[in-house]
């Protein structure tokens, strides 16, 4: 019994000592580890980030950066799990918007506004993008690459179908005509892997943007309107016109974004509606095939819908950035600052595998690619910039947008039903 008691006290003392030790503030030279999750799985991309981390560690010998690389979909699943367990990584990929704000509500991300205000904040060219990483004067992360979704097309295949490769369609009707021409020439008009769902939701959202402008969306978001309003139903009807032409690869409902890239790389399809990262994704998928495809690649903005309320310059887009976890050591913010420094941003722009569209001032001077220049122009001049619905909206609504659009593609929902599905989720989640 005595032994037990002694043991008990000993362990109690031990626990207290350890507890105090843990509270001693870390001295400047104490070793800290930054756990960093990113989704650039391609070898050259992963190597780029490793180099950035190595450079930072060389300058800060007390910092150890532990990188975890996850594939996009796996990343999203795993992040949700660790977040719900209350253990966020110190630095992680984030697209801003409703998903990030949800984490902020739960106190799982760190407010970096104190460090951001001033010089660092002023260094950003993509101001609208930065705002999506914060709310009410707080910021939880910063954008690293930011662009616009648009249509990438293979000029050779356009020419083969008798279309003028230098004069891509500008209106929805012209676009449908081009799709028919490609189809008649035996070319799959549009590459799409709808299994990932976000890949196809661009089509519907862009149509809604062209038809209703930013107003319709913001009204529905603020609950002054609804997702059953006319532009959203009409978006489904216009999309139906396209789907009825059967312009997608065989079995596209069961294919993912990787398959979609492959179809483009094999030059089996002429177009894809995708974000600014598409050329980089081609490189990551197959450098050899990408070398053949990239010189033939062109870009044009999403076609204008006649009579729509949206401004033709309105842009749907988004990008990648990084957010800081709630328990991250101070050095994480320091590292994030380094990532968005002009030098690293330039390096990321020049690195063909990364191929970013930089977010800070002065980094775009190194861009030679005309496509990227056009994308930046659209991004910075957009009268209204719409972040992807599935990032801007709370996860339950964003997920439903993806589901509803998938149902449209599969012919399992009418435009009205798709809009109603989204409205149901919105009514439950948005206040």
């Amino acid at each position, binding site marked *: 019994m005595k032994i037990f008691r002694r043991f008990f006290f000993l362990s109690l003392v031990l626990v207290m000592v350890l507890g105090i030790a843990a509270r001693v503030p870390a001295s400047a030279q104490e070793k800290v580890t930054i756990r960093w999750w990113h989704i650039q799985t391609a070898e050259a991309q992963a190597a780029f980030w490793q180099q950035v981390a190595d450079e930072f560690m060389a300058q800060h010998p007390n910092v150890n950066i532990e990188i975890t690389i996850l594939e996009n979909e796996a990343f999203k699943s795993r992040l949700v799990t660790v977040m719900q367990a209350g253990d966020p990584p110190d630095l992680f990929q984030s697209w801003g918007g409703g998903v990030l704000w*949800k984490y902020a509500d739960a*106190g799982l991300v760190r407010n970096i506004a104190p460090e951001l205000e001033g010089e660092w904040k002023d260094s950003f060219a993509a101001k609208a993008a930065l705002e999506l990483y914060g709310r009410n004067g707080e910021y939880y992360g910063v954008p690293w690459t930011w662009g616009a979704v648009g249509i990438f097309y293979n000029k050779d295949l356009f020419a083969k179908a008798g279309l003028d490769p230098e004069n891509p369609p500008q209106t929805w009707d012209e676009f449908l005509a081009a799709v028919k021409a490609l189809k008649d020439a035996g070319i799959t008009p549009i590459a799409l892997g*709808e*299994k990932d769902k976000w890949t196809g939701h661009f089509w519907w959202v862009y149509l809604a943007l062209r038809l209703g402008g930013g107003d319709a969306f913001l009204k529905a978001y603020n609950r002054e309107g609804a997702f059953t309003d006319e532009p959203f139903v009409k978006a489904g009807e216009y999309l139906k016109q396209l789907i009825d032409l059967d312009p997608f690869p065989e*079995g596209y*409902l*069961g294919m993912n974004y990787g*398959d979609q890239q492959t179809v483009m790389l094999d030059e089996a399809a002429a177009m894809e509606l995708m974000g600014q990262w598409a050329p980089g994704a081609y490189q990551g998928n197959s450098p050899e095939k990408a070398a053949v495809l990239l010189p033939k690649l062109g870009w044009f903005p999403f076609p204008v819908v006649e009579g729509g309320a949206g401004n033709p310059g309105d842009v749907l887009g988004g990008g990648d950035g990084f957010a800081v976890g709630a328990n991250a050591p101070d050095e994480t913010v320091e590292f994030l600052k380094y990532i968005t420094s002009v030098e690293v941003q330039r390096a990321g722009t020049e690195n063909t595998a990364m191929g970013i569209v930089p977010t800070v001032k002065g980094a775009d001077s190194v861009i030679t690619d005309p496509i990227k220049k056009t994308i930046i122009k659209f991004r910075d001049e957009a009268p209204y910039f719409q972040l992807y619905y599935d990032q801007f909206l709370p996860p*339950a609504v964003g997920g439903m947008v993806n589901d509803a659009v998938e149902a449209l593609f599969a012919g*399992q929902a009418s435009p009205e039903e798709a809009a109603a599905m989204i409205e149901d989720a919105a009514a439950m989640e948005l206040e």
Partner: protein
Amino acid sequence: MSALRSYASTATRSQASRDKLRNNLRKALLIFLFVAPGMAIFLTFLLIPVLGSVRYSLYKWDGFGPLTNYVELANYERLYNHSVFRLAVQHSFMLMAMSITIQLPMALAIALLVGRGALPGSRIFRLLLFVPYVFSEPITAIIWLYVLHPQSGLANLTLDALLPGTNRVAWLGDRDIVLYSVFGVLTWKYFGFYMILYMAGLQGVNKDLEEAARVDGANWRQVLWKITLPLMGNTIRLTVFLSVLGSFQQFVTIWVLTQGGPVNGSEVLATYLYKYGIQRFNLGYGSAVAVVLFMITLVFSLGYQRLVMRQDYSAEVF
């Protein structure tokens, strides 16, 4: 004298009852010691989480922070009215039905062929058919993603070679066939497992009985139906049990293959739970799904064990 005797006998009796009490106490302690570790694990990892789920299912809760928004049975009402949930239940039952009516009889037939028939090279068959079960579920699914790829998959290329000019099949991209494709993959994977169980069961069947029946003039069909299969009864009942529970809990393979798509074409209870509960931060709602899934499997397990498998246990189960 008689008083004395009676006193003595009371003394011995109370002595005996004390001994008995001590014995019982010791026995109880021993039982407790043996049961405690298992019970502790059962409580922490099973009973308490299950009760937790029941509690969460009564709240609208996004998984972060305390439970504050009590909604009574609204989550259950919502899932009862959700067409996708009904579809998921229906798919789970379909997978179960197909497993019992196709997967198990096939495994049994092969087990009989390999175990009883005079099939040459039966050992190699046994090995080959068992290999898929050894692969982990994600690996199985990824292999089949390649096989079932709409453009470059082995399945469609084979179809093309055998029947040139046929339309390619969107194995995982067509809502009408995706569930059957998924079932095919599941069969490929679990087939070997049931086959091995049946072969083990077959070993327990005394060949002399079959021999005797044959001598008495029974043909092979009679031997099979009247002797072999009835004697394998306990194995068959067990495999049905495992198969039903397995179909309801199916998640990993389906998730990697289709994520329940396209448009919920292969949605089952577990993928529905993950998609609508966890991915979309509706843990209260997800818990309601979990409770329903739990109730289905619980009712089935208890009922099945009580009604069907009772004869297979030497001691009472309940």
